[in-house]
């Protein structure tokens, strides 16, 4: 039977001692779905994780013990850590978006520097037959392809020189 768990906010958190589970309702307008996935994923080694739709814009997270019995303290620990990890994930998402360029530059330099250039043997083994990589910004396109005259049969204004 689902009931409040001591020392947790009753509006969000319920515990089912028979099932050995604790549930937590997450508001998607506060925590993006990516943060919910990221935060709950860190619990896979400790408990079973169930996600379900609770209502409009709400996700219910259920953390369920892999072995019974389980103490209230442990359930409280899980749900407390989940709340903290949700905040960390949501905020980290924003920070990463702001600092993406720096992080990508440092990562490329670090990994590239450690790997060094490929040897001739490695180049020989390289599979060039795959489809071209995705290029949504058109970086690999020629200037003419990107900005040149459009096919007249497509109609509309032309741009470029």
């Amino acid at each position, binding site marked *: 039977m689902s009931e409040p768990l001591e020392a947790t906010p009753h509006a969000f958190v319920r515990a089912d001692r028979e099932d050995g589970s604790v549930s937590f309702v997450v508001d998607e307008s506060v925590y993006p779905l990516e943060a919910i996935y990221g935060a709950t994923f860190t619990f896979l080694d400790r408990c079973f994780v169930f996600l379900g739709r609770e209502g409009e814009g709400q996700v219910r997270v259920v953390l369920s013990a892999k072995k019974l019995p389980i103490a209230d303290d442990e359930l409280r620990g899980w749900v407390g*850590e989940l709340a903290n990890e949700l905040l*960390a994930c949501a905020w980290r998402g924003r920070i*990463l978006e702001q600092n993406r360029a720096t992080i990508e530059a440092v*990562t490329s330099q*670090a990994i590239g*520097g450690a*790997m*060094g250039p490929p040897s001739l043997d*490695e180049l020989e083994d390289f599979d060039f037959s795959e489809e071209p990589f995705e290029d949504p910004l058109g970086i690999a396109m020629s200037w003419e392809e990107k900005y040149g005259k459009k096919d007249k049969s497509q109609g509309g204004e032309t741009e470029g020189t």
Partner: protein
Amino acid sequence: MSERLFGAMTPETFDARQPAFFRFRQLPMAPDKVVLSNLEGRWLVLDRPDFLAFAQGQVSEGTPLFQKLRERNFLRAYYDVPAATEMVRARHEFVGAGPNLHILVLTLRCNTTCVYCHASRANMDQVDTDMTVEIAEKSVDFILQSTNPAVTIEFQGGEPLVRFDLLQHVVRYANERNEAIGKEIDFTLVTNLSLMDEEKLDWLIENRVQICTSVDGPQDVHDKQRKLPKASAHGEAVKWIGRINERYEELGLDQTLYHVEALVTTTRPILDRWKELVDLYVDLGCRALFLRPLDPFGFADKTKRLIEYPRADYVTYYRNAVDYMIELNKGGVEILERYAAIFLTKILSGVDPNFLDIRQPSGAGIGQLAYSYDGKIFTCDEGRMLHEMGDDTFEIGHVMTSKYRDVVGHEAVRAVVIASQLDGQPDCVHCPYQPYCGIPPVHSHRIQGTLLGRMRESSLCAVHKGIQDYLFEKLASGDEETLRVLEKWTTIRPRDHFVQ
């Protein structure tokens, strides 16, 4: 150049008093002081009223404070972009250098039983945990593929002296193979010293193998944490530290550079005995003491009930011990604390001493690799320790089958590199210690179940913050003698080699 880049932001057209980007923190033990640092790691410690005036853009032009803020690049209108860029570059010089530290686990066998053994040692009869000659040679071949022109091969265990024959073979083989490659190779042996003898010592000195050991405190503490059957582990360590240092002296080597490096693993019983600990290290002739807290790896996880402690207690112990060390230095004794030296070098010199666990990105995979006795390769020694605990997250290849570029370009390495950049870390992005700090993701993974970690709850963050709070208090104290001591601790002197 900066005026051209920021044409609209010149003192003539922009309020010269407005602050540039900064991070700040009120010092917990000196709440009237506020530390601020900027993007490139320049710093100031201000009194609270001065800080408020700065933050509100109300420091009058022409005042000494205004001048100081301008010199340290804290004012938007005068922000020197090229100087800041150069400083950021200097702080990250290690990025892209490739793996320098290569940890070779010759065996898991060990004749000592440590209550916190991070390496998950094996009994002396478990010869199946010895590295074979073939795996050792393949490991060396792999190491010599590193893009770094300088490599250090560190012998770890278990107790590496259990397989001294293999250690000798690795040194000879590496030197021989390197003749055609021309890297700078250093060798380091991490040992409990109990299996040392004069013959081995002669060979190690002759072959330029640096020796490092552990002393966890006075005899009663050390012997309780590190049990050696039928002998005192403390007695053996102390005896050999003295003997090795004596040999270095006989060879006419500079004692400030050439001595046995000893580390302490801080356990609960030593927290109140910091003075005895420092005195012991001074008496042993050690010039450095590394006050390392307990790590959550290996047997330490099982025995934490007996030896662990709140990190606030660790910070108190650290402050007491380093206060005492500073006083000893003022009296002419040369002993430095290694954590302080690492942070102070970054804070005062603007360069990074490349300590792999306190840098960003962390050294795992790109600065160090660990090779287990069975040939498995890990991002770092802690990753190997987790493997012994049943967690293979940081296993990235095998010396017999993996290609070098596949190992250092492994997805686990990429994840660790991204996760250890504090520009992506909540809390760290606003912490004034960010330019000097670093957290190994393997630690966050172990204690919080995520590579990224939550710094507010991280025991390692608490340690790093506590130490840097202390250091900035000292830097703000204005005590000239203290500042001279701290400055001296940042001096990096090359140790070309001890046997010429």
